[in-house]
């Protein structure tokens, strides 16, 4: 009896490929099945990825905040690692300020960093703002500083500024974002309290060419910025020059073979610091009045 049942099943399976959906025969190659399978797969995959992403987000955000603190500290010459970044950051950074496109102060805080607080200048996502608003404005202005300035003022943006205190000197750290050859580049520049002398700088990139544009993150390049001055009188605040050119106190030598990345660094320094300089000017005026 049993044997005959088994036999019947095996005969059946000779005609129709075995499947896991009970008695009803399903054609695996029918369009309906293919669609159904795809939809089910997308739902399962989407749910599991969303779950992974959400459950790891807090840790990733904390890591990103640590990295940001490390970069800010490195601009003022303090080397931190992930373990002590938070502590060193609160030691050295005495005030966090946000300013608008025309250089007016919007917000200021001295309280400990709270990555959840959207009002905290530390939470301003300069990279997001650059991608959403500034990049297109730079393109539209096409090198015309006044058009760009007007665009930055009308776009409701906030720019963060970190006032640090090291060796009893005030240092101002400014975050920069720009475009390299293949993708975004970013960095931090620290200015001394005369607001024109560069105290230190660091740059990083996402996808620049290794050995060429990617070299902007290396010490040999960032060290050249130390002690240079912003040219507040001239048309350009600062320039990255092409090979062989004589550099002065307002310029550094660019990276050979990384012309477009160097130009990107040049552009982001000039564009961003122009905004902050207006804030610095208003600050030094109020200081003079006092």
């Amino acid at each position, binding site marked *: 009896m049993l044997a005959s049942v088994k036999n019947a099943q095996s005969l059946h399976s000779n005609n129709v490929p075995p499947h896991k959906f009970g008695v009803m025969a399903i054609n695996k*190659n029918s369009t309906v099945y293919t669609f159904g*399978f795809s939809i089910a797969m997308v739902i399962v995959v989407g749910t599991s990825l969303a779950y992974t992403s959400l459950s790891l987000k807090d*840790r990733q955000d904390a890591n990103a905040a640590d990295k940001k603190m490390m970069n800010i500290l490195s601009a003022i010459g303090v080397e931190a690692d992930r373990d002590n970044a938070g502590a060193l950051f609160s030691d050295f950074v005495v005030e966090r300020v946000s300013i608008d496109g025309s250089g007016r102060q919007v917000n200021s805080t001295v309280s400990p960093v709270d990555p959840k607080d959207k009002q905290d200048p530390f939470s301003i996502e300069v990279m997001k703002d650059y991608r959403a608003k500034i990049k297109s404005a730079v393109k539209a202005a096409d090198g015309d500083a006044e058009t760009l300035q007007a665009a930055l003022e009308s776009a409701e943006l906030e720019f963060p500024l970190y006032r640090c205190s090291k060796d009893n000197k005030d240092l101002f750290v400014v975050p920069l974002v720009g475009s390299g050859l293949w993708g975004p580049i970013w960095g931090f520049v620290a200015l001394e309290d005369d607001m024109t002398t560069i105290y230190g700088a660091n740059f990083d990139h996402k996808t620049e060419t290794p050995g060429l544009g990617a070299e902007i993150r290396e010490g040999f390049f960032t060290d050249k910025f130390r002690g240079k001055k912003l040219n507040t009188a001239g048309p350009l605040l600062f320039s990255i020059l092409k090979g062989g050119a004589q550099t002065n106190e307002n310029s550094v030598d660019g990276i050979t073979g990384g012309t477009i990345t160097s130009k990107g660094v040049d552009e982001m320094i000039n564009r961003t610091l122009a905004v902050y300089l207006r804030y610095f000017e208003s600050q030094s005026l109020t200081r003079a009045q006092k």
Partner: protein
Amino acid sequence: MSTETTPAVTQKKESLFSKKNKKLLSDPLNDSNPITVQVLGICSALAITVQLQQAVIMSLSVLFVMIGGNVIISLMRNMVPDRIRIIVQLVVVASLVIIVDEVLQAFQPDISEKLSVFVGLIITNCIIMGRLEAFALANKPGPSFLDAIGNGMGYAWILLVVSIVREIFGSGAISLPGMGQVKFLPTSWFISEGGLYENNNLMILPPMALITVGIIIWIQRSRNQALIEEN
């Protein structure tokens, strides 16, 4: 009639560690090594073998994706419509890679930064897609699991050997995840400190990875004559 079904039953009860299955584990380590014999997955093997710790994390990531992909595809092998099977494989591999990437960003942020695009490129690692298409789609989860471990380890040991050679001669150090880089040469040996030794900077560059892999292939073929193709 019942005599016909008996062999099928005994075949089903084949042990997971039968001779055939053990070959699934050992073959990719030597005779059909994905890197040195099949020459697959070379791109990542050249790019991330500057330091041992990167190679360890990369190997673990590839191993995880291989095992996950092989087992999942093997479990689904009777349900996957033929016409979209490559897309299904791609989606499974891609989701596993995204999970690996997210976990690395959360728990090993520095290494995740160094591996950068190469974690994402695990998706296009030919070893993984190759095993899914050639093995997992036609075999049960058990053997597929062993096949994944075999191929993952075959990939891993080459990566580890290459990275150990490159890190020792290129940086004079050895690094492991969680321990950082340990420099074991006394600094007084170096020319800059008045000694006679200097790290070989060529070792850090990708060409030296290719040469190191080449030397492994040379040693492997001289020991295993069966691998030498006839002209």
